[in-house]
């Protein structure tokens, strides 16, 4: 945030450098003196956890790429070469494969945290939309990464998803063949997916920088959803307060992550992906990775192909319009008794769609997917706009400091008065 840098270069060289490229000052103002609301809870550590996961994925991915070969006849064997013959190759691959799942677990928590505390509302619309763009890039990256081992699910998943574009009228087939680089998913597809899978994470990193920039410009939202009134009373400096809390959150998340890597590394994967890709044999059920399942359910719930594709993409696109669809002036669900209930219903619906996406598209599952898909859109397009008009929110605290005071009683005022002096 501008105007909060307290960085004073120490010594001649530091002053010389700072006057030419003030990067140390920039880092100091973003990661040391940056004021964070003091009422942030542990749900707010997921931003740091996601940054860590992006780093983990890029690092492990770059090393994996040194041992991998994108060539359809041998890619499956190259991945097994990594698993068997490369020193700690099994560890790298399990980190990377499970890391993708962990990345999505963290991003879903991060998104739902934003939904609960209304973090998308003015002045944070651009921050939120940048987040939606990161999420889209993540989906593209993860999808293409899953194709690289060239197993049965890689091949058939790629076939199903790329075929979605054939629903576009007139030019659909041309677009799909252009995506494939041929007349079916094949070696050209694998190679371009590898190139893009290597490129996109760096684009994600770029948008993450914009995301953090926008965040630091407008300041963080917080569980009470009221703006910072006084930096001295409402905030604490990022370091050491947020740093130590974020690092603790990251290490706890690493514990969770390690449990998957070392004890159930194939839990998130599909056994069919240990069968080499075979264009002549279609798996009984083609299932995408778990993090795509809610959207897969939406896709299949619409009886028309183009309609299904449009519904699926709209389900993501509608998130970008959320700042204007939610008409309530109050941010946090803490002070919105009705929204809080609809939030939890929506969360259950989203998980339910995920379950339905993993089931065969038949009988009762189709009916259930249609109901939940309808609700998904009703939540954004009808409930949220109306709720802001009819809901009577609870009275908001005058400031973050007041909210904290109300929760803890008067005994801790002394400490709350001058936290910034402790930085």
């Amino acid at each position: 945030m501008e105007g909060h840098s307290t960085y004073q270069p120490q010594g001649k060289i530091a002053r010389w450098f700072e006057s030419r490229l003030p990067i140390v000052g920039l880092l100091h103002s973003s990661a040391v003196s940056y004021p964070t609301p003091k009422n942030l809870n542990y749900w707010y550590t997921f931003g740091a956890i996601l940054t860590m996961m992006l780093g983990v994925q890029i690092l492990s991915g770059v090393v994996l790429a040194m041992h991998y070969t994108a060539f359809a006849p041998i890619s499956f064997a190259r991945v097994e070469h990594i698993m068997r013959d490369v020193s700690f190759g099994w560890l790298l691959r399990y980190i990377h494969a499970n890391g993708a799942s962990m990345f999505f677990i963290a991003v879903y928590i991060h998104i739902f945290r934003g939904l609960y505390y209304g973090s998308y509302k003015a002045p944070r619309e651009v921050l939120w939309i940048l987040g939606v763009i990161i999420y889209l890039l993540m989906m593209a990256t993860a999808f293409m990464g899953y194709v690289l081992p060239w197993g049965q699910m890689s091949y058939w998943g790629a076939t199903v998803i790329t075929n979605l574009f054939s629903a576009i009228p007139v030019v659909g087939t041309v677009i799909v063949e252009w995506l494939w680089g041929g007349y079916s998913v094949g070696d050209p597809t694998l190679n371009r997916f590898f190139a893009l899978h290597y490129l996109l994470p760096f684009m994600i990193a770029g948008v993450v920088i914009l995301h953090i920039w926008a965040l630091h410009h407008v300041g963080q939202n917080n569980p009470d959803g009221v703006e910072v009134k006084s930096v001295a009373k409402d905030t604490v400096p990022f370091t050491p307060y947020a740093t130590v809390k974020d690092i603790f959150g990251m290490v706890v998340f690493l514990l969770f992550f390690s449990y998957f890597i070392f004890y159930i590394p194939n839990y998130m994967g599909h056994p069919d992906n240990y069968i080499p890709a075979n264009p002549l044999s279609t798996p009984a059920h083609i299932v995408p990775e778990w993090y795509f399942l809610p959207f897969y359910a939406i896709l299949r719930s619409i009886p028309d192909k183009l309609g299904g594709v449009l519904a699926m993409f709209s389900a993501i696109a509608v998130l970008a319009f959320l700042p204007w669809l939610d008409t309530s002036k109050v941010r946090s669900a803490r002070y919105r008794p009705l929204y809080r209930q609809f939030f939890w219903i929506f969360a259950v619906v989203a998980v339910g769609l995920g379950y339905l996406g993993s089931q065969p598209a038949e009988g009762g599952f189709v009916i259930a997917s249609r109901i939940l898909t309808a609700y998904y859109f009703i939540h954004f397009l009808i409930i949220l706009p109306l709720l802001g008009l009819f809901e009577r929110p609870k009275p908001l605290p005058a400031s973050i400091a007041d909210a904290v005071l109300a929760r803890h009683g008067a005994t801790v005022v002394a400490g709350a008065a001058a936290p910034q002096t402790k930085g």
Partner: protein
Amino acid sequence: MIKRSILFGAVAAALLLGAPARAAEGGHDDLPHRESWSFAGPFGSFDQGQLQRGFKVFREVCASCHSANFFYFRNLSQPGGPGFSEAQAKAVASEYQITDGPNDQGEMFQRPGRLSDQWPAPFPNDQAARVANGGALPPDFSVLAKARASHVGFPGFILDAFTQYQEGGVDYIHALLTGYVDPPEGTKVQPGLHYNKYFPGHQIAMPKPISDGQVEYTDGTPATLDNYSRDVSAFMMWMAEPHLDARKRIGFQVMIFLFVFAGLLYFTKKKVWKDVAH
């Protein structure tokens, strides 16, 4: 808060009540039995004797039709495996003739196998394998134990994350090998296929591959079909996941480190935030 708890309670109740109903309707008698494996759980590791017996079954029975293309003779003596010495692994390799070349005359030639050689495939190509097996291709064994599973559905798969159940593939293979039974009355088995209780669709191209007493065990283990199936399944798990022992051992060290580190960070965080109401 109260309303949220009610909602949670309702969802939890729906899940709990729904579970037995689903289990009852599914009729899960076709689900493979969950065997007890030495390599299961957080401290699991392969049983060397079992891997050696499994290797014997694989070599004398399975390998006459199934390839194992990612399996090398050198793997036999690597740590975390069946525990053969390098000399023993060399001896095994030298029993096989491998095509090598071309030599300086430009001709291919046969020589005894070496540690660096791939396990020789029984057929020169997939088509030859199909022709010899009534049109069906015997799947490669290298990662087969991870390419098979028994699906438990909801909510069993959530429990499996907590019990660290990763043995669906070996349980399936063990069940398949012991699942050759007479077809129930009224079931018509297609010509060239065989009835198996656990194979999806129940009609499998592979004839019953192994029976009691077929492979000689020298360590006193009873030479039964059940033991053969168990041992060869364990061997296939090792072939599919040769670094499993190291993974679980290192995993425990990593978990301990992270747990202690997280504890220290927790108290550091508490101290830093001591004087700030939040």
